[in-house]
């Protein structure tokens, strides 16, 4: 059986789980307002505000909170299925349109950050592993500890100070639409993407180093050397391939942190993405917007995890076989 056909049942089972997870998140996002202590309408209007009874009743009706909970829930799920997340409380604009506008910007930032992380993290990890125990290795390893510990907004602020204000190479913050000015668009992408990517680069470098060292000690590497295979070929064709699974794992596990990190990085660089929309909506207590943003981020997260698991199965025949 071709390996790709063998994957079909695995893919179907994982798709089923992902759908269940999505349902769970949609339910949670719906229930959130009722889980917090206090009257939902009062929570939305603000703890300390003193609204008129008319304002309370109006908001209650607008959100449909006056109907039975079961009806509200089914209505919400039905809307989500049709891609209808309701309307913003602030300006009555459809939430789905906000999401359609902001999600691509956040995804662009995240993808660029992952690219930065892989391009920096892999070579650093490989270099450290091949020079194990040297000064270069300990310097690189210390740098990764620093990269993991330093919060993204501190790193970002430093990068702004150095590259935007000090050297004046790149714009400090903001966003330009790709269609208006492509060069400016990518110039403004560099600093946020590097900021977001460096932490992940540190994780990748650490994992690459550890994983390479482990594989380099295996018997098959000794055999390859004994056969007279060149060191370059051993590293690139055999060691890296075997070391890839833990590296993909760490990238997968860190994607949640990356999504969390976008919240802070978008705020720091005034990047008008989904996370910025979420933070603003939370500040405005614009509940439908918050629900839509959270659900979208959760869905993105679940889909990314799905993709990561499928990549494992392609990389490691053992995982594929165990699943069958």
């Amino acid at each position, binding site marked *: 059986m071709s390996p790709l056909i063998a994957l079909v049942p695995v893919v179907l089972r994982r798709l089923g789980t992902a759908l269940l*997870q999505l349902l769970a998140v949609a339910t949670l996002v719906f229930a*959130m307002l009722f889980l917090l202590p206090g009257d939902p309408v009062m929570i939305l209007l603000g*703890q300390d505000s003193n609204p008129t009874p008319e304002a309370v009743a109006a908001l209650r009706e607008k959100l449909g909170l006056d109907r039975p909970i079961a009806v509200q829930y089914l209505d919400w799920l039905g809307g989500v299925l049709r891609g209808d997340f309701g309307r913003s409380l602030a300006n009555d604009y459809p939430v789905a349109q906000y999401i359609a506008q902001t999600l691509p910007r956040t995804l662009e930032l995240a993808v660029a950050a992952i690219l930065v992380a892989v391009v920096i993290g892999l070579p650093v990890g490989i270099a450290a592993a091949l020079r194990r125990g040297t000064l270069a290795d300990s310097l690189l390893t210390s740098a990764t*500890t620093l990269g993991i510990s330093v919060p993204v907004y501190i790193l970002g602020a430093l990068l702004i100070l150095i590259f935007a204000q000090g050297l004046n190479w790149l714009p400090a913050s903001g966003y330009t639409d790709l269609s208006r000015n492509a060069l400016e668009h990518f110039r403004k992408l560099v600093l946020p993407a590097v900021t977001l990517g460096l932490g992940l680069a540190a994780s990748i470098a650490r994992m690459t180093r550890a994983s390479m060292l482990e594989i380099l000690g295996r018997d098959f590497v000794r055999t390859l050397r004994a056969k007279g295979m060149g060191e370059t070929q051993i590293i690139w064709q055999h060691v890296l391939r075997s070391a890839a699974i833990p590296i993909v794992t760490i990238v997968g596990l860190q994607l949640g942190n990356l999504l*969390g990190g976008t919240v*802070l990085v978008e*705020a720091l660089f005034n990047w008008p993405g989904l996370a910025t929309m979420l933070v603003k909506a939370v500040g405005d207590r614009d509940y439908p917007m918050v629900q839509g943003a959270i659900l979208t981020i959760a869905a993105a997260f679940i889909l990314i995890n799905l993709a990561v698991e499928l990549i494992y199965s392609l990389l490691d025949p053992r995982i594929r076989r165990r699943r069958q």
Partner: protein
Amino acid sequence: MTRPMRGIVHTLRDLARSRPAIRLWMGVLALIVLVALFGPLMAPQDAFAINPLAVLQGPSAAHPLGTDEFGRDLLSRLLIGIRPTMLVALGATAIAAAGGTTLGIFAAYGPNWLGTTIMRGVDVMLSFPPILLALLAVGFWKSGVSSLIIVIGILYIPHFARVAQAATLQVVRQEFIEAEHSMGAPYRRVVATGILPNILSPLVVQATLTLAAAILLESGLSFLGLGIVPPEPSWGQMIGTARGYLGQNPLYVLWPSACLALTVLAINIIGDALRDHLDPRLRQV
């Protein structure tokens, strides 16, 4: 001091003896704890005193680290700004440790269905970035130290539950637990004297990780303006405000950034060393 507590102190002492570099980081951490305890007494000036004539100044004799956008003394604000962060981190870690350890032991030592239910819930919660959940809870509930402690504490319960469950599963299989059972020891006693002392090392390591994570989460929320409520300062919140004044006073963002980075780095490095030290497999290498 109870026996396990004494064990931890011994471990830390061993660690400081065997790795001189760790002693330096322990010193850094001790200094930070001192500032958290006595910072308000050390502050040279009133951290809340506004001075419109000395806004966003660089270092001077009157203000060794400069001033913020209201002309408040940055050194004083820095010195009192660690306390809310530390309170949140310690309180949240305590809640997470207590709740997570209890759940984890139940999951491993209780009936199977309970274990499955708990661990599934843990998996779901772990699969979501904590800052998003914290953002929601703090945004819609209320900000401030006490709610941050509760929210961050609850968010890190699953991490402890997973560690406690894995460790308990290993201990439960051992013969001395079986022996206690056969001698008729009640479950409560088995947990208190058989299980808990033997799963303490991974929990201590997890506690250091959670401390660092809670500090980062509080700082992140305060950075976004949803954490510690102004005018009370916290380092994260100072960084968040300072980002608006990068051009006027670049040092404004550097001071709290350096303090926060150093704190998290110290906790992470000591935590790493502790993990290596407590794990006999790694110690031999």
